[in-house]
């Protein structure tokens, strides 16, 4: 899973030479074999490295603030989203929905690695949502649809149908 995600990210970034990966431990943490130095361990760490390798530093944020925000969501993805229970899922969607209420992207007005990374992580959760639930988390749905339509992001994942307009009009909020 994580390795497919990294290979999708490589393609999105336009990295010509695919990297060599392995995994370690029970949790199958990805490891990047690095010719120029010691291996890099961890999904967020490797993803940040690929962005630098592709010379797209803006994807990590363009200020100290946005860089911290991007790293925070990368951490959120690997600590909260991955392996969350059904109960956690509802709290997570509720929080994200409130967070995205006044934002276009995870880090505000700029597309960053946090969007790609959270999109990959939340895809399996969105797959399981009913139409009604998607409406309940309308800001998450809007953001999700926006990101899956960004050229080159989706790759290994199937597109999901997300309605941007409510069809159950009786429910507000």
């Amino acid at each position, binding site marked *: 899973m994580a390795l497919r995600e990294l290979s999708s990210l490589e393609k999105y970034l336009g990295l010509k030479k695919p990297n060599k990966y392995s995994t370690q431990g029970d*949790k199958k*943490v990805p490891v990047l074999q690095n010719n120029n130095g010691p291996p*890099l*361990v*961890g*999904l*967020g*760490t490797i993803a*940040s*490295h690929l962005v*630098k390798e592709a010379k797209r530093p803006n994807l990590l944020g363009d200020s*100290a*603030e946005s*860089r*911290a*925000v991007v*790293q*925070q969501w*990368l*951490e*959120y993805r*690997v*600590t909260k989203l991955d392996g969350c*229970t059904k*109960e956690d899922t*509802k*709290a997570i969607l*509720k*929080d994200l929905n*409130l*967070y995205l*209420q006044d934002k276009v992207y995870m880090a*505000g007005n700029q597309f960053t690695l946090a969007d790609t990374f959270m999109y990959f992580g939340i895809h399996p959760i969105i797959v399981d949502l*009913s139409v*009604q*639930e998607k409406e*309940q988390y309308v800001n998450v749905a809007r953001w999700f649809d926006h990101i899956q339509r960004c050229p080159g992001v989706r790759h290994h994942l199937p597109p999901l149908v997300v309605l941007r307009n409510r069809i159950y009009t009786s429910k507000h909020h």
Partner: protein
Amino acid sequence: MKLFVSEGNPHCLKVLAAVEVSGVQCDVQYVNHEERVVPFLSRPALPALLLPSGLHLFSSNAICRYLFEVSGEDSSELCNQWLEWEATDLQPALLQALHLAVVQGKVSEVSKVLQGPLNYLEQSLSKGNTPYLTGEAVSVADVVLWAALYPVLSDASLALGERASIKAWFDRGAVMHSCQSAAQKVLQGKGLQGMKSYMQRQPAPPSSQCRDSQPCNGNPAES
């Protein structure tokens, strides 16, 4: 810039140590454990940093990273790796260990829970052969790991066993002083017991197979 912390919360130790080490000016405010500082999170999340832009950072590692970057020190890839390891591997074990020691009083079981991450850290430090985690100088990774481990490493009653490289790293003065003063603020000189009221409010760590479903503050979802 405003930093919200609460007494007895081990994550606050990290950010208070980072404030001292980085020397960044910020207004520190002590609040109750249950105070919801971050408007979009349904569970209370401390520490939290209110950024000049009005956004909140709610991850202690992201806050430490930000404080270091503002003081002119960018985190390296090796730093990123340690911070990610701290969040994904060390923290779950630490939470479980603190829960055992502070809430359940099963001090003798702590060593087993921490064995894996501590051995990993010991190996990395002895292999790396540098005084600090990422090289010759203190980085944000040292501060975060130091502060995270301070409560357990400074408590002799846990009998965690001797690990030479960790001991040398932990005793290497540079950041020790800042961590100790942060620990004094957070733990009030009560050691692990200083965290009791915080730990009692935390969901039990998912060590057993069937994890209790914690009621989250919101309405039960209507599905």
